[in-house]
């Protein structure tokens, strides 16, 4: 039996690795991949707690999170493609038209 705290620690570490990736990477696609990493860490936390509470709620929530992540990935990548078509770059530092 895997102790709950170990799984929660793994989820927290993966989430913070994703947060660090969003802060320090400049490629829009890699930032998006770090957001997916954060979503995966949250899924792990839900399933671990669902196992600990002996309840199916966590797994149903993970089902819906995966569906929404798929929809978000499709639209987010379409936005990045449209951005690349207009600006010839996916570096988020160069998309600064609305900055003061």
């Amino acid at each position, binding site marked *: 039996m895997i102790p709950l705290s170990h799984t929660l620690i793994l989820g927290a570490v*993966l989430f913070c690795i994703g947060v660090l990736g969003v802060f320090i990477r400049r490629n829009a696609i*890699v930032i998006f991949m770090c957001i997916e*990493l954060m979503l*995966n860490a949250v899924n792990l936390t839900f399933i671990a707690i669902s*196992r600990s*509470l002996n309840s*199916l709620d966590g*797994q149903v929530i993970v089902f*819906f999170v995966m*569906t929404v992540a798929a929809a978000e990935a499709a639209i987010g990548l379409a936005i990045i493609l449209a951005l690349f078509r207009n600006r010839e770059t996916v570096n988020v530092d160069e998309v600064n038209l609305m900055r003061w």
Partner: protein
Amino acid sequence: MEQLLFYLFALGAVISGVLVILKKNPVINALFLIVVMLCLAGIYLLLGAQFMAAIQLIVYAGAIMVLFLFVIMLLNLDQEISGIVKGGPQKLIGIILAALLLAILLSVVGINQLPGKGAHPIDELANTESLARVLFTHFLLPFEITSVILLIAIIGAIVLGKKKL
């Protein structure tokens, strides 16, 4: 044996996660993210969520990450522009903030037994069958709404991908 497998998968997930944010080539980042998802699917199997492990492999690693790889190869990016940020304080502030978040999260994960119990207990049926029993009765409305979400995503992706909007 279970604990050994869990630590193996956890180590693989953390190392691959760190390599996702450190490598320069976006294709390598996507492949390491797939490795993270494979390790997480293994951990879901160890935690008794077999259906979720299969769905993670099919949907996440098999569809979403393939979509990512399509887009990366479609854009055909140059490798130097996709590195870590070169600015002065930005990297340091990012590392400090992420470490702070990790400290905050680690201060509450020392729990081994959560109080209370969930609403739908896991019975002795197979994981897929018991999930289906809950999903199609109690969670029917969110299930139908996710179908609408997927329809909106399809329409949105097609509209955003047109040459002239």
